[in-house]
Every structure is written in structure tokens, then in C-alpha cells.
């Protein structure tokens, strides 16, 4: 017999009410009950970080939170940052630096980076590496991701030297559109 309980979770400020099983994860709730498929399910056991969201102001892996533990609480997915200065700066920097390859890790990478830069706006490269160490990128694009976070923190000029010929030149208008689509995630 299934033992459902009703929860209301504020997903990007929108209240979503649905029945959940006691052991259901916040990740399952977000994807299957709230339609927030921008939150990706990778390993489902806390290793890969693709399901990272902002919960109680901290970056957490939503597969490691019970949906019931988020009852009456705020959760922010990558779609909940419209107009947020820091997140937009990060997203633009990811696009500019070619830090998105297949895009699967990107929502989690962005949220981990966002929470990190909020607490530590002027990080060293080593600190950036540690900050995203809970998020796996299997396209092996770590260098460009680190470049992107560094550039978001210090501005474009700071990484020009470090990346040199690393990032491809693409006309800016075109890239914006493609980038925004990728970063928001489709399915």
C-alpha cells in the first residue's frame, strides 16, 4: 500500500502541491511533479551533482533531499534566476568561454558556482576547482568551466591571458541565443 503525503514546495517562488511517498527525493518531485526538468538526474546517488539546486540558500544535490524535507520551503532551479545579476554574468561567461559542451552538467555547475561566488566573490583558481569538485562533467570541459567562473568573478580581461586562444570566436549575438537555450535546459 502506498503511503502518500501532501507537500507544497515553492519551486522558483511558484507553489507546487502534490502527493509524495515518504522516501521520494526532492529531485523526483522537481522533475515529475513540478515539471522542472531543467534539474537533471545523473547518478541519483549524490556523486555527480547534475541535480544541484539552491535549498535554504545553499547548493545541495536534490537527489539527497527528501521531498518531504522541502515541504513549505523554497527551492531554486536554474530557471529561477531570471534578472539575477550574478547568475546572468555566470551564464554569459559560460557561453563566452565555451564552458558548455553537451550541457547536461551545466545547470548544476552554474548553481554550485553561483552559491560559491556569492560566498567568495574573489576566489583563486584552486578555490574554484574545489567549489565545483562535486559536479562531474563527462565532456571533460573543466578548464573552460573554471575559466568561465573566474571570468564571472573578475571580468573578461582577467582570463584573456589565461585562456589565450582557448575559446572559439563566435559572433556575439548568435551565441547569446544558443547559450540561453542550452543553459535553461530542454528536457
Amino acid at each position, binding site marked *: 500500500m502506498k503511503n502518500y503525503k501532501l507537500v507544497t514546495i515553492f519551486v522558483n517562488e511558484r507553489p507546487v502541491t502534490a502527493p509524495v511517498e515518504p*522516501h521520494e*527525493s526532492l529531485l523526483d518531485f522537481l522533475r515529475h511533479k513540478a515539471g522542472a526538468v531543467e534539474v537533471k538526474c545523473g547518478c541519483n546517488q549524490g556523486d555527480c551533482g547534475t541535480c544541484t539546486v539552491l535549498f535554504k540558500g545553499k547548493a545541495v544535490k536534490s537527489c539527497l*533531499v*527528501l521531498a518531504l524535507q522541502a515541504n513549505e520551503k523554497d527551492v531554486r532551479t536554474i530557471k529561477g534566476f531570471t534578472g539575477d545579476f550574478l547568475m546572468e554574468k555566470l551564464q554569459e561567461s559560460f557561453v563566452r568561454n565555451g564552458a558548455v559542451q553537451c550541457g547536461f552538467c551545466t545547470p548544476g555547475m552554474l548553481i554550485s558556482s553561483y552559491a560559491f561566488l556569492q560566498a567568495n566573490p574573489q576566489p583563486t583558481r584552486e578555490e574554484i576547482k574545489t567549489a565545483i*569538485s562535486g559536479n562531474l562533467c563527462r565532456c571533460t570541459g573543466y578548464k573552460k568551466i573554471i575559466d568561465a567562473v573566474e571570468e564571472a568573478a573578475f571580468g573578461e580581461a582577467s582570463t584573456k591571458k589565461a585562456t589565450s586562444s582557448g575559446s572559439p570566436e563566435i559572433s556575439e549575438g548568435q551565441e547569446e541565443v544558443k547559450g540561453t537555450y542550452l543553459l535553461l535546459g530542454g528536457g
Partner: protein
Amino acid sequence: MISCDYFKPSEVGEALKLVSQFKERALFAAGCTNILPDIHSGKQKDCVLIDISDLEELTGISKCGNSMRIGSSTTISELLDSSLIRDETPLLYEAALNFADPVVRNRATVGGNLAYASPAADMAVPLLALDSRVVVQSLDQGLREISLREFFVGPGKTVLSPSELILRVEFNLSQNFKVFYVKVGKRNAMAISLASLGLALKIDQTIKDARLALGALAPTPIRAWRTEDFLMGKFPEDKVMEEASEILLSEINPISDIRGSREYRVELTRSLFKRAFRAILSGERGLS
């Protein structure tokens, strides 16, 4: 099929009533960094989840005289954010820095790490070296204090009765120790320890006090008592270090698993101990 139930008590007393009602089926849920993977893998199928994650009584890091208190639902990130921990207990701080990854550290708790009782529990090594006491409570046994050295009895097993809840961990601050912590895993982040070691030495010409704790090298996290005894009163020199490392190897009992062989872990232990000993003597990372 998974059949779980869920309760969210609003205070510790209510949590204790619930756990005494459901006994073995009851599981305290805080960070859930072990519970949810265990449910997903089928290891945990039938349980009553008692959500203690918002119980204020279990939070907080405080210093009371010479004694440090850490609430059981303190997250590893909260340890790292605490200037008390950073300044006064560098061994614990170092272990927290090497715990899982920054995102998991936002959820994983000190109490949960101890209660799960993995032989590789990363909080156990520094807390063992700090001679910690675990303060627990239940309806039938009331409040009791358990020395951490008697807490673990096997992989995943502790002396806790099914109805006991860990309230906090306490230890006395000791001055003038120089400490060194090292953890070896397959990678830097999200690694389960292949071996971890925490060494604390108080040296005034000779070794006045020695504490050595080890993780992932025996069925539980352990203190190397005989090695410690041997070190007491000795001059901190190479010959003593070599002899101590031989004694140390007779105290561990590592297994071969997916992360490394028994033979490798034995050699690793020898080398980690020497690294720690030399680092303390040379003052490199000489955290007191």
C-alpha cells in the same frame, strides 16, 4: 517494494517517543546523504523516517569553558564556516575540508556520519583523536555519554540502542598539540577514504602525549593505542618513528576492496604515518 513512513517531530522529546514506538524500523533522517542512496540501491526498503533536520536542539557549535560542543545535526559546511573549529581544532577542520565535496558538505551531518559507522567515516578520525564523547538520549535509558572510542563495534554497527538519538559530540580542548591529518582516496572530491590518519603530538623535548587515529584500516575507525604508548616519553627521532610504524602495522587490519588491496593499505599506512610524524617535527602545517 519500498514501504516507508515519515514523521517530522517538532522537538527532541517527540522524536524520542517516535523512535521508541518504531524501534528497529526507525531511521533518523537529517542530511540523508546515506539514507537516500541506500533506498535507491534497495539496501533500505522498510523504514520509518524521523526527520530531525529542523530540530534546533541538535544544532550549534559552542565552547563552554574548556569543552567544545557540536550539535549532532551540524553540517560539515557549518564546521568549516565556524571560526571556533578553524582556530581551535585544526584536525577536525582539516578532516572537514577533505569530506566528500562542498555540495554534499552542505547536507551531511556530524551525527549522521558517526551513526552510519562506516569504517571510513571521515569525522570519526579527528573526533577519536580529540577523545570525544557522544551524548545520546532515549526514553528508556535517558541521557548518557559514550566515549567515542567505545562507540563503534563493527562496519555499520555502534553501541547505540535502536531508540537512542545522538544529541551532540563533546570534547575537551587540549593545548600545545601539533597535529597532522591526511586522507588518501582515489580522487580529491567525493572519495571514500582508502586510508586516513590523524596524528596529534605534544612535544617538549620528548613526546609528552600522542594520539593516533585511523580510518578505513580496520572494521571500525580506530585509535592506535599500542603505538601511542610506545611513543610516550620517547625522543622524536627517526629511529622511534621507524619502530612506531612497525607497531602501528600490527594494530591495523585493512581489507582488500574495490579501492585498494590490503597490502597496499599496509604500505600506505606506514608511509602516511611517517609523513605525519615528519610534518609535525618539521613544523610544516604545524597546527597547534
